């Protein structure tokens, strides 16, 4: 029986590790094929950098080399004053040598020779130099974490130049961009091609092919674009088509909707569609409008929509942008009447699109408007979602919390500030992790009260219990505070086990009803029952219970289970209760329960 348990436990563990490796390999493989990531290892193999005391003499350096059997050389001529030196040593010797060097009084610091970071360089797209807007929102820092992998962004607009079909063609700098099936609501067919230019420009800001040595860059360039054409070549469209497109996007896996369109009048049908999409866990990002008004237009004005105002290079609100208290956040929309960055181009937003109303020709065009600001936030939302934060309210909260303050937020219409997607991504995993940890602690306190302090104290203070509890609930999210944050494997380990569905199955499979159920902790519980790992099994079940409870508070949709009559919430509630019961059972049946007090726990276990 014991052998069976061990075998089952090893199998379960192996499956988890194997699938983590596969997912990590996928991401690493993708990174390796990305020119920006090539030749940028995290640290140079076997190379260390040693900063010696500034007043050290040449003789002392020679003696130090002799003492440790290393050959030090100055990193560059500029390092001679600061006595910064490097040495090549055996890989196996690096850690022990560094430990010794750090204790040596002749040494100020010693560490592996880290390369600066994975994505320190600018993308190789030649016109990136004109994309001041992407630098303004700190996009390269965000790319250290992800590039929007797995997230579908619906672009509800004039269509997108995404395919070669008749007089339409795919523009050159969308060649590597991923697309999912869309729909043409204007002509009622499956070819949502762009006959204006606006929609393609907007899609480019979100996911222009990047690091392809061509044209310009996009923010979430590994996200998938869902082109939904609702506006005709004249730039206008019916509210009824737009409402249908919003519902279509929500029903076909989009996690982000970009609506760079609007008008001054509200519509019940469109608001209702937006409410529906939001309830399905979609974040809806809308342009605030260009009327210079103190009120935003619609759909930006609806409660569930994110209203985006437009800024210039100097972070001031663009003169055309709507403003007011309803604005959530600001992002670069450009001002073509100025060249504040002196790059010889008007300060608009540059993307690859077709010629205005001529789908047979294309170019790199500079546009301005709140329509251009909007996709910056939509792209940023895709990156945050790809990092694992899928609840639309939580995504918005992170974007607002990390927005760069300008000092004129409310009065000037900047909302929470100017978008800083780099800071948002740095913050995403940590913020999410802390929230889950708080929920997990609350669940644990409830269980301690139910089980009784005497029975639970010894178990819960054990390392295996706490580790399994952490892995089941919030994962090792605190690793995001370290330099390892953003690395592929760390991206997986910094989630609780249920949320690893994102790593294994993609964001669009989140929340997977298998991962968010009692199944995995039950298998683990059976595997470790009456073994020394039973405590870990209990912790794991309680951690997963907390993770499921956390998902219940969000508005993310449970996959495959309809939200009708709150069936999805019921699924989560039942599985939360079952995980809680399983955890309680494994604690009560643990042979060590109560040993520290009067032995009653021992009797119960028997």
């Amino acid at each position, binding site marked *: 029986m014991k052998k069976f348990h061990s075998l089952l436990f090893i199998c379960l563990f192996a499956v988890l590790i194997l699938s983590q490796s596969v997912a990590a390999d996928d991401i690493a493989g993708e990174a390796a094929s990305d020119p920006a990531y090539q030749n940028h290892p995290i640290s140079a193999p076997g190379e260390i950098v040693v900063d010696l005391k500034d007043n050290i003499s040449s003789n002392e350096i020679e003696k130090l080399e002799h003492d440790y059997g290393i050959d030090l050389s100055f990193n560059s001529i500029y390092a001679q004053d600061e006595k910064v030196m490097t040495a090549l040593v055996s890989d196996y010797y690096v850690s022990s040598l560094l430990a010794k060097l750090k204790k040596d009084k002749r040494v100020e610091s010693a560490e592996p020779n880290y390369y600066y970071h994975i994505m320190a360089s600018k993308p190789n797209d030649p016109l990136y130099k004109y994309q001041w807007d992407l630098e303004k929102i700190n996009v390269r820092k965000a790319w250290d974490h992800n590039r929007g992998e797995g997230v579908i962004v619906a672009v509800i*607009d004039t269509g997108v130049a995404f395919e070669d079909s008749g007089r339409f063609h795919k523009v050159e700098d969308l060649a590597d961009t991923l697309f999912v099936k869309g729909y043409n609501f204007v002509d009622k067919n499956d070819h949502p091609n762009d006959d204006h230019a606006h929609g393609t420009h907007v899609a480019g800001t979100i996911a222009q092919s990047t690091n392809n040595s061509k044209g310009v860059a996009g923010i979430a360039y590994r996200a998938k674009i869902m082109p939904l054409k609702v506006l005709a070549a004249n730039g206008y469209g019916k509210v009824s088509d737009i409402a249908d497109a919003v519902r279509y996007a929500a029903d076909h896996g989009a996690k982000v909707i970009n609506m760079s369109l609007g008008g001054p009048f509200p519509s019940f049908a469109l608001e209702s569609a937006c409410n529906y999409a939001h309830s399905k866990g979609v974040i809806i990002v809308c342009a605030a409008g260009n*009327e210079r008004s103190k009120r935003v237009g619609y759909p930006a004005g609806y409660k569930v929509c994110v209203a985006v105002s437009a800024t210039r290079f100097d972070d001031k609100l663009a003169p055309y942008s709507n403003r007011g208290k309803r604005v959530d956040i600001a992002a670069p929309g450009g001002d073509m009447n100025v060249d504040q960055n002196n790059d010889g181009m008007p300060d608009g937003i540059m993307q690859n699109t077709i010629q205005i109303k001529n789908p047979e020709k294309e170019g790199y065009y500079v546009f301005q408007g709140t329509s251009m600001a909007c996709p910056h936030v939509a792209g940023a939302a895709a990156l945050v979602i790809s990092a694992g934060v899928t609840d639309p309210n939580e995504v918005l909260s992170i974007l607002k919390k990390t927005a760069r303050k300008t000092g004129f937020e409310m009065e000037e219409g900047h909302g929470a500030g100017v978008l800083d997607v780099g800071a948002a991504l740095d913050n995403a995993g940590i913020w999410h992790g802390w929230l889950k940890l708080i929920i997990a602690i609350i669940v644990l306190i409830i269980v301690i009260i139910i089980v009784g302090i005497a029975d639970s104290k010894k178990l819960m203070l054990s390392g295996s219990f706490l580790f399994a509890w952490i892995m089941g609930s919030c994962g090792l999210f605190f690793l995001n505070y370290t330099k390892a944050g953003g690395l592929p494997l760390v991206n997986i380990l910094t989630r609780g086990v249920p949320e690893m569905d994102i790593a294994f199955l993609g964001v669009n499979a989140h929340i997977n009803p298998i991962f968010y159920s009692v199944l995995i902790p039950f298998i683990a519980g059976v595997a470790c029952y009456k073994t020394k790992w039973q405590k870990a099994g209990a912790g794991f079940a309680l951690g997963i219970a907390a993770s499921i409870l956390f998902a219940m508070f969000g508005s993310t949709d449970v996959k495959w289970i309809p939200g009708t009559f709150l069936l999805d919430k019921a699924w989560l509630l039942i599985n939360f209760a079952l995980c809680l019961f399983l955890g309680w059972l494994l604690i009560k049946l643990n042979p060590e329960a109560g040993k520290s007090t009067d032995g009653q726990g021992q009797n119960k276990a028997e």
Partner: protein
Amino acid sequence: MKSFKGTVKKSDLEGGVWILDTGKGDIFQLKGGPVDLYENGKKVTIRGNIRKDILGIGMIGPVLEVHETT
């Protein structure tokens, strides 16, 4: 149907949007009408309807659907 008097202009927002500036603070986005209407600086009187059921890329003002111009 109402009459609207003003100057036709091409705004450089959103890749280019045609508007009617009444000179009294009201701006309408133009939809439809004859091709020769769309001339920067042209002074016109337009008979048409404000379309509340139509949205667009311009977001500069209400959409005015043109029926007649003089």
